[in-house]
């Protein structure tokens, strides 16, 4: 455990499917349009994106550029107006709601900006929920392991309202890890947090990527994106940049914002 209280990643046990060929993400010609009142809004325009397994990718761009929409397409929460989305070998864009639910259950896990923890469940139970959702054996054991992994074993009996924002986000990460799903989708995971706590969270995410998970982090903060292996820049629904972080991959300890 380091000085932030976060335990080093322990790849064994909870991520049995990491490295599986099915963790690849492919988006071809994806367009998403909404109609708000009388106005057509194009959230995404002809997106072609391919992410290999075990990659650590940051998606950056200003508010309203389509970052979250893109993440929702990959996470099968939303479907494109046109184009195809394949996640883990499954075409999510043409799947039925049930098939997409199955995909979410066994392939991807979410970390939300607003945590979305269940207020009536303790930290331990919230994490166990992730394991239960993915129908993992020994969900209690996996939950304990995941909580320990994010340094919150001592806080397992606490309810969300008894935890700080950073602790709540770590519980959310543990919930995603306990699912054992190979793809982790994080939407502005540090958006609600102060710098110090945000760094703790990024460290946990980086450790998961290092351990073999495919991690996609959406952020509007280009400084945070520097720790990813690959940075995809979006603007007005289009990919305007795709490559390693400008200036090279940074060490988390060097980040400042």
């Amino acid at each position, binding site marked *: 455990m380091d000085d932030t209280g976060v335990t080093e990643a322990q790849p064994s046990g909870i991520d049995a499917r990491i490295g599986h060929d099915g963790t690849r993400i492919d988006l071809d010609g994806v367009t998403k349009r909404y109609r708000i009142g009388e106005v057509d809004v194009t959230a995404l325009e002809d997106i072609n994106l391919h992410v290999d397994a075990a990659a650590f990718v940051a998606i950056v761009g200003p508010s309203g550029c389509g970052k*979250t*929409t893109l993440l*929702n397409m990959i*996470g099968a*929460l*939303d479907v494109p107006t046109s184009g195809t989305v394949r996640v883990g070998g499954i075409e999510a864009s043409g799947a039925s709601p*049930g098939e997409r*639910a*199955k*995909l*979410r*259950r*066994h392939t991807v*896990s*979410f970390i*939300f*900006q*607003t945590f*979305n923890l*269940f*207020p*009536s*469940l*303790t930290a331990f*139970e*919230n994490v*166990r*929920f*992730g394991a*239960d*959702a*993915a129908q993992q054996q020994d*969900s209690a054991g996996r939950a304990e392991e995941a909580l320990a992994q994010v340094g919150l074993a001592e806080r397992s*009996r*606490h*309810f*969300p*309202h*008894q935890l700080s924002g950073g602790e709540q986000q770590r519980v959310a990460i543990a919930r995603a890890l306990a*699912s054992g799903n190979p793809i982790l989708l994080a939407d502005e995971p540090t958006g*609600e947090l102060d710098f110090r706590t945000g760094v703790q969270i990024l460290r946990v995410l980086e450790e998961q990527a290092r351990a073999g998970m495919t991690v996609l982090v959406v952020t509007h903060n280009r400084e945070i994106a520097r720790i990813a292996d690959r940075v995809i820049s979006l603007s007005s629904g289009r990919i305007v940049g795709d490559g390693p972080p400008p200036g090279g991959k940074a060490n988390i300890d060097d980040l400042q914002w």
Partner: protein
Amino acid sequence: MTTGSSLGFWLRWSWSDLRSRWVAVVVIALVLAIGTGVYAGLGSTATWRRLSNDASFGQLGMHDLRVTLSPGTFVDEATLLELMSTLDGASRIEAAAERLVVDSQVDTGGDTSVLVPARLVGMAFDERQAVDTVWIRDGRAPSTDGEAVLEAKFADDRDLPDQGSLAVGSGPTVQYTGLGIAPEDFFYEGPEGTIFAEGELAILYLPLATAQNLADRPGAINDLVLTLAEGADRDEIQAQLRSAVGVSGLGATVSTRDDNDAVRVLYEDIDNDQRFWNALSALVLGAAALAAFNLVNRVVEAQRREIGIGMALGVPRKQLAIRPLLIGMQVAVLGTLAGIGVGLLIGNAFGNLLESFLPLPDHRQPFQFGVYAQAAALGLLVPIVASALPVWRALRVEPIEAIRTGHLTAKSSRLTDWTGKLRLPGSTMTQMPLRNVLRNPRRTTLTALGVAAAITALVGVLGMLDSFNRTLDEGSAEFTKGDRDRVVVQLDTFYPAGSDVVSAIADAPTISATDTGLRLPATALATPSDDELDLLLEFVDFEQAAWTPTIIDGPPLASGPGVVVAQKAADDLGTAVGETVTLRHPIRTGPLSFALAESEFTVVGIHANPIRTFAFLDLGAADDFGLGGVVNLVQAYPSAEGSATDVQRAVFGLPGVASSQPVSRISEAIDKALDQFLSFFIVTALAVLTLAVLISFNATRITVEERQREHATMRAFGFPLRSVLGVVIKEGVVVGVVATVLGVAGGAFFLRWMLSSLATTTLPDVGIDLYLSPTTLAIAAAVGIAAVAIAPLFLIRRLRRMNLPDTLRVME
């Protein structure tokens, strides 16, 4: 911004709130409307009944005073009118009429033949009869000699047509040309003081001459009814009449309007009944108020963050309070307006029932402004208070606290902290419903209480029916004891047990066996209070008779002294088995002369009949009453091939037979009367049922709204819709079980209070035990659990169409 434009701004915003929450607002308004409507609708009946009674008694000229000659005494026509004219107060008498009133029997003949005691009332059917006139409800008044009008309640009870013919005694047939009723007969109490006796006495209103012919009393009358001028001293004229009757040497009683059973019951019952309806409507209104409070509270609480933002932006707190308060006012106005409508509907339904239940010629049901104003005031107050409280709470907090994300999350409470230490079995999805319920005990309790209050009202109404029904069933069972063909033959006076009269009954065709007995009125004196209870003493051969009372407390029946009373009588008299009771009873001093005596009797048993009036002694005890060896009652049993009707037919017209009645008639009459009572309760029960379902539905709807982010999270993690629904339904079941248990307990408590306080005045002669039938419990469970659990199914479309990405990003 000017004050006017500012108000317009808040009103527009509030209008927008209303449109986005119209289902919740309408449902809460409906809940409130049912509460205020039941209150307003039921609250009007007392005034309606009083007005209708006044108008009906007035229209038919109900007598102020009545002179009734002693049984067997008759005088020539005009004798009593002349006697009346000699009074000092004669000028204060407005109208008077002589009548001939005699007892008889009638047989309707035909396939639906019924043989019952009858009363022939000979009177005028023109302007000469201005007192106790007959309201012709169906058909027409008699136009020629030999025609009659049949009392309407009897005809209704016996399903007789509007016109027909009846055999009177063993004599001629009388054509009745219509159905009608005189004011003194608006209510008929049976000879044993029992209720449900409408079908047990056929009253025939006939032209005086027809009655005289039928009674074989040409030119005779025995009754005088009169009304007094306004302001006349009734007591003074009553005293003068008594004196004049006494001087003339006639045996007679002079009674007042207030001595009449119909007047007594119709007016006395109004206040007793209204107390019952008031208690019930208060309960329904309380349930609705609690539910409306809870629901408005939750709707307004959802705006707390926006209030916090407003405070953060420096908007004055008073202005911030306008918008949520307007929600309360919208609910209040809608609920009150709808409540008036519901009140009118319920009032109308009750009005119709009253018209069918009370055979009055003039039913008056004017709009009761005062009652509606009370209901409207309550309807306006409840939602405004309900919205004011959360607004007050929201405005008390610091802005930063109000705008904090997660403000809806349960704050730390001992229960919440304690539940965190619990490790519940099953997956997290299995645990979530219970966890959610425990998460906010205050909210859960309020929701459960709202549903529970509605169930309390429902159980109270249905339980009253159950208890009433069961009590009467017990009474019926005790009367019949498996032999519905037993016929009680009442003799017109006392006869030696071996007399020709009794032998003729025993020897009548189709009668296989008889038991003789006695029936005497008596008064029981309660100790230590001075209360008096009317009893009907029945002397039965405890060891030989085929029918004897069932003993539920005390040793088996045996010959000897002592009295067997009903449990209700023992309770009211403050006595028990082995203790004594004082009876004031007639004692025969000569062949047809009696004196009153007070004697102490040991209570040797409690019988199973819940009706307080009935008390039994062994026939051997008749000696103590000077009645050894004589009887006035015969229990007749038909032969194997005969029926009760055959027995009645066989004794019809026999000398000395006053009436004959199969015991099965009692239970039939009870069933019929229950159907009428049932109608009153069904109206209320339906309103309460709707209330409970609406409360359940809206509580669930708001829960689903509050939990939408949690539901979206579950679905984001791949749980199908049915799993999410399962959590909501299970949570509903947990709340529903709590609400049902509370509601049934509350209903039983309410019922116990009703039975111990109200029923003792409304039905003093009946001992009603609290009973909740399995059907009532099943309905309570169906409403409390099933309705709450099923409510989410109506929200499937909403859950299915939920925009997951948007919902997951909502900041509450």
